[in-house]
C-alpha cells in the first residue's frame, strides 16, 4: 500500500532476479483484511500488495491463514473487513467466477481436478471463459461451435506441450499419480491465460525431481507469459529461490514482508518458525 505513493524512480530499483523481466505497478492491493468463521478469526488486519509480473510468496506455519488469503483474493471467501483493490478498482462481494473473468486463476492445496474427465477436458475447462458459443450451437456441433472447440484445443495443446504431458492427454485424471495431477491442475489454470495466478502449495508431496520440474514451469510461466504469481509454499529453499517478495503470516497476522533476504533476517519470522516444528 505504501508502495503506491513511491515515485517511479524507486520502483525501478526493485530487485529483479530473472533478467529481462520487468516488475511493474501494483495490480492487487489488500488493505486491512479480516476474515472470521463464526467467531474464529482466520485473518486479522492483513495488508499487502502484489506487483505486476512478480512472484509473490505467502509463507507461514500450518494454520497461519495462507489458503484463506488466496480464497479471499479469488472470491471464495468474503472478508468481513478491509478493502481489496484489483487494478486500482475496489471489489465488493466478488464471486469466484467473476474473479476468473478478471484474469485470476488458481490451483488448490488439495488437488481439485474434475475426476471424471480426461486431462484434455480438464484443461479445456480452463478455456471456458473465452468460449462464446451457446447451447444451441453446441448441440448442433456444426460450423462455429466446432471451429471454436478446435481453436481452443489448439491453445490447450500448447499448454500440454508446455507442461510436457503429451503422453497422458487422454488419460482420466483420476488414474494419474499425484505429481502429474498437480501438473494438470496447473495446466488448467494456465489455459485460462491468467494475468494473476494463485498457486496453493504446488509442490506439496512431490519428490525432488518433480519439484524441480514444477519450479521450472513456474519460472517459465512468469518469464514467458509475464504472469503475476502469488505462491504458497512450504519448501523454504524454493520460496527463497524464486520469489521476488515474501509475506509471512502467523496465526492470521502478518509478521513479515519484503524481499527474501529481508524476510530471512526478520526476528519475528525466525521466532515463528523456530516456535513451530519446521
Amino acid at each position: 500500500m505504501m508502495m503506491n505513493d513511491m515515485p517511479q524512480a524507486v520502483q525501478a530499483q526493485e530487485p529483479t532476479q530473472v533478467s529481462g523481466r520487468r516488475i511493474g505497478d501494483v495490480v492487487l492491493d489488500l488493505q486491512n483484511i479480516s476474515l472470521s468463521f463464526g467467531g474464529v478469526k482466520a485473518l486479522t488486519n492483513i495488508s499487502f500488495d502484489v506487483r505486476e509480473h512478480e512472484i509473490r510468496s505467502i509463507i507461514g506455519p500450518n494454520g497461519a491463514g495462507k489458503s484463506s488469503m488466496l480464497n479471499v483474493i479469488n472470491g471464495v471467501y468474503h472478508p468481513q473487513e478491509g478493502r481489496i483493490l484489483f487494478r486500482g478498482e475496489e471489489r465488493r462481494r466478488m464471486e469466484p467466477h467473476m474473479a476468473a473473468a478478471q484474469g485470476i486463476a488458481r490451483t488448490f492445496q488439495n488437488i481439485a481436478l474434475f475426476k471424471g474427465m480426461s486431462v484434455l477436458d480438464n484443461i479445456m475447462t480452463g478455456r471456458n471463459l473465452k468460449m462464446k458459443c451457446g447451447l444451441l450451437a453446441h448441440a448442433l456441433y456444426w460450423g462455429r461451435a466446432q471451429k471454436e472447440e478446435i481453436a481452443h484445443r489448439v491453445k490447450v495443446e500448447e499448454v500440454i506441450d508446455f507442461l510436457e504431458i503429451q503422453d497422458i492427454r487422454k488419460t482420466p485424471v483420476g488414474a494419474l499419480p499425484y505429481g502429474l495431477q498437480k501438473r494438470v491442475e496447473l495446466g488448467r489454470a494456465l489455459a485460462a491465460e491468467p494475468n494473476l495466478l494463485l498457486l496453493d502449495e504446488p509442490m506439496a508431496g512431490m519428490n525432488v525431481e518433480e519439484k524441480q520440474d514444477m519450479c521450472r514451469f513456474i519460472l517459465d510461466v512468469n518469464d514467458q507469459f509475464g504472469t503475476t504469481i502469488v505462491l504458497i509454499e512450504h519448501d523454504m529453499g524454493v520460496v527463497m529461490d524464486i520469489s521476488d517478495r515474501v509475506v509471512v503470516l502467523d496465526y492470521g497476522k502478518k509478521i513479515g514482508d519484503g524481499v527474501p533476504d529481508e524476510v530471512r533476517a526478520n526476528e519475528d519470522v525466525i521466532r515463528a518458525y523456530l516456535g513451530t516444528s519446521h
Partner: protein
Amino acid sequence: MSDRNGQAAHPAALDTFPRLLMHHAAVRPARPAMREKEFGIWQTYSWAEVARNVRAIACGLAALGFKRGDRLAIIGDNRPRLYWSVTACQCLGGIPVMLYQDAVAPEMAYVLQDAEIRFAVVEDQEQVDKMLEIHPEVPFLEHVIYDDPRGLRHYSQPMLMGLDELQEMGGIHDRNHTDFLDGEIDKGAGDDISVMLYTSGTTGKPKGVCQTHGAFIAAATGAMQVDGLTDREDILSYLPMAWVGDHLFSFAQAMVAGFTINCPESGDTVMTDLREIGPTYYFAPPRVFENLLTQVMIRMEDANALKRKLFHRFLDVARRCGADILDGKPVSAGDRFQYWLGNLLVYGPLKNVLGMSRIRVAYTAGAAIGPDLFRFYRSIGVNLKQFYGQTETCAYVCLQPDGAIKFDSVGKPAPFVEVKLADNGEILVKGPMLLKAYYKRPDATAESINAEGYFMTGDAGYFDADGHLKIIDRAKDVGKLKDGSMFAPNYIENKLKFFQHIKEAVAFGSGREAVTAFINIDLEAVGNWAERRGLPYSGYTDLASQPAVYELIRDCVEKVNADLAADPKMSGSQVRRFLILHKELDADDGELTRTRKVRRNFIAERYAVLIDALFEGRPTQHIETVVKYEDGREGRISADLRIEDVKTFAPQAAKHAA
C-alpha cells in the same frame, strides 16, 4: 515455384537429394512427405511444403554465410526441421554431419573439431547448452541454430539463432535472389559428398565416412527394387539420425521413393505413435524386436488361463506353418484354416497392439538376431527380414529376398552390389554405394579399400549352396583347426548364446585338434528352471556345478553341434568338450569389455589351466580365481569344475540325427 520445380523435375537430373526433393514437390506436391505428432495430432507436411521450408532454411544458411563444402552439424531427435536442414545443407553443396543427440558434450567436441564445424542446427536448449559448453574448444563454431526456442529467451550469445528467424531470413533472401538457390542446386552433382556419418570404430577415434549422393541414391533405389516400395509407404522415424540405418530408411529411401516419414511426439510416446501410424515399412535393430517379444510374453503372463492357452495354442500353429505361409510355400488346408483362425484371434490383434498390422516389409540389422526371435515375427505374419551392411556401404550389401528367407543368412547380394570372398574368408564388396573416403584420413581410406576397389568389411563369411551370404565372425578372429577345417569362434558362441539358458560362451580351437568351450549359464533363466524342478541351489557357483544343469547345457551344445554338422563348412568345428565356469564373466574382472564383448585373449590367459584340462581330456579341474566385488574388495573363488564330453555328429548323417 512450379517453374523451378519443373526444371529440377527433369528425369535425368535426379542424381542429388535436393533435385529429388524438387522433383517430388513438382510431381506429388500434395502427398504427405512428413508427419510429426505434435500438439496431439499428426501435423502433416506435403512435399511442396517441405520443399518450401527447405528452400527457406537453405537460403537462411546462405545468408548467414554458409559456403559450398561447409559442414553443418545436426543434433537432435527425429524432428522434421532437422531432416529439412539436412536437405537444405545439401542444396547449398554443404555436408550435413549428424551427431548422436545423447552424446555428452566432450564427445561432441571431437566430431565438431574433426569436421571443422562452423554451423550447427540443434534441437533444443539441452543441445544449445552443450554447444555453449564446448565452444571454447571449437573456436570455429560460428552459428548455432535451434529448432525449439523453449527456455532460450534469455540466452544472449550472438552465435545463437532460432530456426524460425533463420527461415524468415531465408525467405527474404530467396525473394531478393530468386535464382540463387536453384543455381546452387544446379551446381550439385551426384558425385558430391551428400553426408558424413561418423563410425564409432572398435579401435581409435571415430572416423567420418563421406558418402556421395550417388551412393545413397543407389542404395535406396536397390532396396526399393527388391521390396517394391512405392510412395504410399509409411515409416516411423525414431532411431538416431546419426545412424546410417536411419539415414538410409528415413532419409534416402523416403527421398527416392517419395514415401512418408513419421516422427513420434516424444521418446515416451513411441509405442503409442507406432500403434497409431501403423507403418507399412519398418526398421529396427534386433534388440527392439527382442524387447517387444519379452514384453509380449510378460504381458501375457497376466492374462487369464483361457487366454493364455489360446495364445500358446495358436503360437504353436504359427510356429508350425506361419513362416511357410508367409513365404508362399505349400501348406495343408487344415493348417491354413487353423492359421486363419489364429490370425483372427491372436496374431491379428497382437500385431494391432504392437503397431505391426500394416507392415509389408520390416528389416533388422546391426547385430545377430536369434532364430527363435526371427521366426516368431515371421510366423505371426510380419515380413521381417535381415540385411547386412556397414556405414561405409550405406548400410547396404545383402538383403533377404521375399520368399527365400533363411534364418541364419543375411540374404543375397543386393542390386548393383558385387560381393566376393577373400582367401581368408573376408567379405569384400564393390558397388556404387561405397564410401568416397574417410574424412581427412587418406591412410584409413587406403587401408580399407584394396587395389581392385573392393571395400574390406572385416567380416568373414561364405555363400551357401543357394547363394545366400552367411556372416560367421570378424575376419581376424577366424582360425583353423589342426585338420584345416574352419573355426569361427563368434559363430559358435552366438549359436550357443541364442539358448536362453546360456548367457556367455567362449570357444577355443584355433590350432588345436578340436573345439572346446567355456559356458556361463544365465542365472535367472536356469535359476527359474531349477526352481520349477525343485532343485535347491545356493548361488551361481553351486548351480553351475549341478549335474542336472550340465545335462541341460549339454543338450544345448549337442543341438548346436547338430546344427553345425548340417553345414558343410562348419561341420568340422563341432564342440567336443565343455565346462561351465564357476563364476560369471565380468567386466570388472577384465573378462568382458564394457559393451559386454568377450575378451578372448585375456580369458585364455587367465584360465589357461582350464583350457589345458579341456584339451587334455581330464574329467575335472581345480581352479581358484581372484574376483573383485562391487565394493572394490577382492576375494577368491575356488571350485572343482567338471568337464563333459559332447556327442558330435557326422557331417552328412547329421540331418537324420537331428
